[in-house]
């Protein structure tokens, strides 16, 4: 695996991500990437305003959700053969690559020829972003534990198979790992509309701006009046409450974690 330093680019890309880009599979939220180190050849590209993983040829990566395929056989990792393999090309990890994940088995595992080998990730949900599974055509990449990675033959950058075949297929979307800003202890980044913005520990969105005459909903983001500055954050104690400022601008807090909670003319804060 080769490191791909694309942080600056992806940060800029994240700004443009529209709402709804987070469904992976089609009807489930997707967590952010845990790493910016991708398998060889894989990188992030912007397609129709969204960030996706693509292969070295720029072909859009799809995930085959193994959870949906259990009915087809005891090892869904072996599902894509025959007609499926004609339509879908696996993204292989190299024939010498060693698998480190397998589809998890329940009660039925006792009857399988061999147990999950030591060193494998037994809980896919806890696996790192990129693992390797024994696929029908050799060691194959898996994204976030469940999604065997494929490209659609002949459809280089099309998203038309999103949710196809009973939601087996989903495009692999990219959300940058959360940044770690220098900020008051209660501040953390959350994703809204495909973008990281700052919020408090309860997810309430922070914002700045000028409320003009209509200041309803502009609640100061309170600081302790004994608190000192941290990074670009300062405590302004001149008002009725001690309030955090960021780069000299007073910071306010919404009452929810949604864009609708932010008053008109307010600006969210990018980490």
């Amino acid at each position, binding site marked *: 695996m080769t490191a791909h330093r694309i942080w600056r680019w992806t940060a800029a890309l994240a700004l443009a991500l529209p709402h709804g880009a987070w469904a992976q599979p089609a009807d489930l939220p997707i967590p952010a990437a845990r790493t910016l180190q991708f398998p060889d050849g894989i990188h992030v590209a912007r397609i129709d305003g969204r960030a996706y993983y693509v292969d070295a040829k720029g072909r859009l990566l799809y995930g085959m959700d193994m959870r949906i395929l259990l009915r087809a056989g005891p090892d869904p990792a072996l599902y894509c053969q025959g007609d499926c393999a004609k339509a879908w090309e696996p993204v292989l990890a190299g024939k010498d690559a060693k698998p480190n994940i397998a589809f998890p088995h329940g009660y039925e595992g006792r009857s399988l020829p061999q147990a999950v080998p030591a060193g494998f990730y037994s809980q896919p949900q806890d696996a790192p972003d990129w693992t390797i599974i024994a696929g029908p055509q050799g060691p194959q990449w898996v994204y976030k534990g469940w999604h065997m990675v494929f490209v659609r033959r002949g459809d280089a950058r099309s998203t038309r198979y999103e949710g196809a075949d009973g939601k087996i297929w989903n495009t692999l979307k990219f959300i940058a790992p959360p940044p770690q800003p220098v900020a008051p202890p209660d501040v953390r980044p959350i994703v809204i509309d495909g973008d990281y913005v700052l919020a408090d520990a309860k997810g309430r969105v922070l914002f700045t701006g000028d409320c003009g005459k209509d200041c309803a909903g502009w609640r100061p983001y309170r600081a*302790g009046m004994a608190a000192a500055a941290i990074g670009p954050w300062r405590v302004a104690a001149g008002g*009725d409450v001690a309030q955090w400022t960021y780069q000299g601008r007073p910071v306010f807090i919404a009452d929810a974690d949604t864009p609708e909670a932010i008053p008109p003319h307010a600006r969210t804060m990018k980490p």
Partner: protein
Amino acid sequence: MTRSGLLPRGLVALGAGAVLVAALSAHGAAGAGGDVASTAARFAGPRITGLRRLTEAQYRNTIADIFGPDIRVAGRFEPIVRPVHELIASGARDSSVSPSGLEQLDAIGRGVAAQVFDDKHRALFLPCQPHDEAAPDESCARAALLPLGRYLFRRPLTDAEGNGYVAMAGAAARTAHSFDKGLELGLAAMLESPQFLYIVETAQPDPQHPGVLVLDDYSRASRLSYTLWNTTPDAALLASAASGRLHDPAVLAATAAKMVKSPRFEDGIRAFFADMLLFERFDSLSKDPIIFPYFNSEVAAAMPEQMLRTITDHLLTRDGDYRQLFLTGHTFMTRALGGLYQVPVHKDKGWEPYQFAPGADRAGLLGQAGFLAIYSQTGRSSPTLRGRAIRELLLCQPVPNPPGNVNFTAVQDVKNRAMPTARVRLAAHMTDENCAGCHRLTDPLGLSLERFDGIGGWRTTENGAVIDPAGKLDKQDFSGAEGLGKLLAASPDASQCVASRALEYVRGQPSDDADAMVESLDSHFAASGYRIRALFLDAVTQPQVWEVKEPPLGAPTHLSLLER
């Protein structure tokens, strides 16, 4: 003399609660740590004239203001006992802390201190780097603790106090091999000090009126802040106090005027009405879940909040006439409350405004589930409790307690089909002349609210019999909550009552001795159109409220832990 030391747990040996009061020193006089007992006896300058224990809300607000709202205050607070027919604000003046209460405060203070100097927050409150993280550093400890002490004690620390806490931090750092642990202990000691746990009021002779004591500037700052904002003085107030300007009536009035216009005045109004309406009853509110399935923990938590939102919305957001608080149909709902009221609620979380329909009989405070529930019994409504609450809390007309030998059988027999309604049952009960006198004061008011059950849910019948909401206030007949609300709104006793309570709240003592001030306040209140901001502004700017007429406390019998 009490000596300080470290308990095995690293606690400060404050000792029993009785020590708290005795541990106070008049900071202006004994600041140098001299012979305090003898100093106090002959001292003619500032002296302690009152101690008002912080309420739980004030403690929490203070910690949030000084250290930030993300610092958790975890623990149980020993409640301040309410004197009969008085406010808790008056009780706070006489409130001691029991040994177990002190243990709780000790744990709470240590919890706060541990957070302030934990890895997440340390950078915010430590302005320097110690020479050695595992050893004392007097200079750095002083730089960290003294500014915090100024906020916590609402005045600068005396040299003796500062030296004491720094020394304490140093000793702890040596023992624990941790500079941070030393700071933590020093801060915990401040948080357990009576100088923090009590609002210490100090007075000095009024140069304009010989023989009269008036509160000094720092005490004025604290009184203004805790009265109007229910929290500790902010930086601006402390600066005003430091400059001595709060003695100037014009400055004080301008400061107060600004404070009552601030959004933070809502916190003060909430605290005042929670005190006036005996909200501590919510802490022990329980209802029979079989009789009242709509009552649950969410509803119990929402009831007082709904009342406070209604009050602050009407009196502050709308700048409404206090008297209309008994009639307003504006309120706020949550999903849980919506079930009780049987009204639609759109938001799945939180609060949303709600306007009762005309004719709903949900008139103002009297039609709110919270009021109706806390003045009910566990399994039934209580016209008597409701009537008494109206008399005592809203009209300031004390009602005697019932005699000890009352037979409540008739009132409690709520399943008796022969006496299907509370009106019938109370009528039977009132054949006992020992009871009738008081019930004639309370029941005609409370019976008008009988269409609200023991949690404030609406009903029109009881045991199959139609409920008659007729009521009588003195000689005036009315019907239902709305009828009662109209009479209360028109009653001069109601407005004078809240004026009297406001004065008591400001001074921390009943207004029995201040008829003239109450009448003056009420008059000004009326002139303002019964606006609550005007009432409180008037109350805190009356020169007399800053005068101290009671004799000062006796001289301290010994010094605190800080004297070594």
